[in-house]
């Protein structure tokens, strides 16, 4: 469905992403793993159109995607993103209801017919929030609630691909497991493709069908999750795996 080919992004003379090719098929979740500074966030920003590539192409259903502001409406909403910092993901001065409504105002095609207030409540319930949250301002919510609202805002426009950039990293461990479980559940119900970016292999293995490993802007390994985790070919993957196994005792296991 979405295909990244030979993507290169430079910041001045620093090569952040070097010749990365990656694809996400329909209904598939791809985990993109790497330490901070490995270029994984830049790949995500290029896919959603926030970062202009220096070379390489990003295509959706075989059609090339430009910067987000130049994309046609339907293709704009096809790819949505959930950001790392839950608190700054939402405008702290806006109510949850107006945040969701902004998405529908921008993409009337995806807006529900009938009562918007009821639709907001349904959407919030869909991400496991109490409908009363709609009235609250974003700065009154907890980190986990913020992240659920972020997910709701992304789902409001019925995307096909959800890019989660370290979406659970800033949350504490028990909330992390809840959000992860929610994402697993949502992608099944909404038939979402997902690009799940994390530095934590232990988190990625709970959700990803395929795993791609990045280091220093280069894709070092890619394959089905079981293969990458079971018999990593690259030393770097192995060291990530060891680090994750050490931490894994702290994580609640989430069924896929």
């Amino acid at each position, binding site marked *: 469905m979405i295909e990244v080919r030979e993507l290169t992004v430079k910041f001045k003379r620093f090569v952040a992403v070097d010749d990365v090719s990656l694809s996400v098929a329909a209904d598939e979740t791809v985990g993109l793993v790497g330490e901070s500074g490995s270029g994984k966030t830049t790949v995500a920003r290029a896919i959603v159109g926030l970062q202009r590539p220096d070379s390489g192409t990003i295509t959706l259903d075989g059609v090339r995607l430009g910067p987000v502001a130049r994309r046609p409406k339907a293709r704009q909403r096809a790819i949505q993103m959930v950001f790392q910092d839950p608190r700054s*993901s939402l405008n702290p001065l806006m109510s949850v209801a107006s945040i969701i409504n902004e998405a529908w105002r921008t993409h009337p095609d995806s807006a529900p017919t009938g009562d918007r207030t009821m639709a907001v409540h349904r959407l919030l319930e869909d991400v496991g929030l109490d409908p009363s949250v709609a009235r609250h301002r974003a700065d009154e919510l907890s980190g986990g609630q913020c992240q659920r609202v972020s997910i709701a805002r992304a789902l409001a426009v019925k995307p096909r691909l959800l890019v989660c950039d370290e979406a659970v990293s800033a949350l504490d461990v028990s909330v992390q497991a809840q959000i992860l479980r929610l994402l697993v559940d949502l992608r099944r119900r909404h038939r979402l493709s997902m690009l799940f970016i994390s530095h934590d292999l232990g988190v990625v293995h709970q959700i990803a069908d395929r795993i791609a490993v990045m280091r220093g802007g280069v894709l070092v390994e890619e394959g089905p999750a079981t293969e990458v985790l079971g018999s990593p070919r690259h030393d770097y993957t192995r060291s990530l795996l060891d680090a994750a196994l050490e931490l894994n005792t702290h994580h609640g296991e989430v069924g896929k």
Partner: protein
Amino acid sequence: MRRIPYVVLAIYALVGGLGPLFIDYNPVRASLEDRLRGPGSQVSTGIAWLGTDGLGRDVLAQVVYGARTSVVIGLATVVVSCVIGVAIGTVAGYFRGWLDTVLARGIDILLAFPAILLTIVIAGAFERSVLVVVTALSATAWISFARVTRGIALSTRERAWVQAARVLGVPRISILVRHILPFTAGPVVALATLEFALVVLAEAGLSFLGIGLPNSAVSWGQTIANGKQYLATAWWISALPGIALSLLIVNIGILGDQLTARYGQRGRRS
């Protein structure tokens, strides 16, 4: 103690707003037998509580009408320069690129002139009128608004909620108005009070120099200038409007500092 500036400013607003309704004053009517009377003396029109000036005009009336002039000119200039400065600052900070470079360098060039010099040049080049004074004062006052809001826009545009709005495809103008502009409000309000004080002072300065408001308007600057030749014999003509002016400036300054302490910091963080 923290309420004092609010109380003082409320008194000025009240005197400036309602005073002219109760005190009748015509700046071009001179009464030569009443000239240079001290505070509290009996004159042909009643008691001159604050004395009279060299043309026999009531000083109390001039202080009251001058308060109205200062507040009106100050508000008009702050509103004009605030709107212009905030618009330019947010646009430059949000869009960056060549637009920002042009605006930022333009501001640098303007800052190279002493503000009062530029104001004097503009005010002196045209016929004296309220419009010219407001324009001349706004010509430099917008710069601080632009600089403050540009900084806020530059940092706010990197926040995830702005990025999320861009990914969503929210039109750029809505992003500016809804996701950037509200975060400039606190610092802008704090700055507006400080600018108001500077503007009132600058207007008095222009009028003192005789290139500010026309003679038909009453301005503290003019009254102070009218009294300067009588400083030794009739101190009240210059001193009383001068006290009214300094009291206003000092209190706005204190209020501005209070607001900066409360909103300036938070605006930069959130």
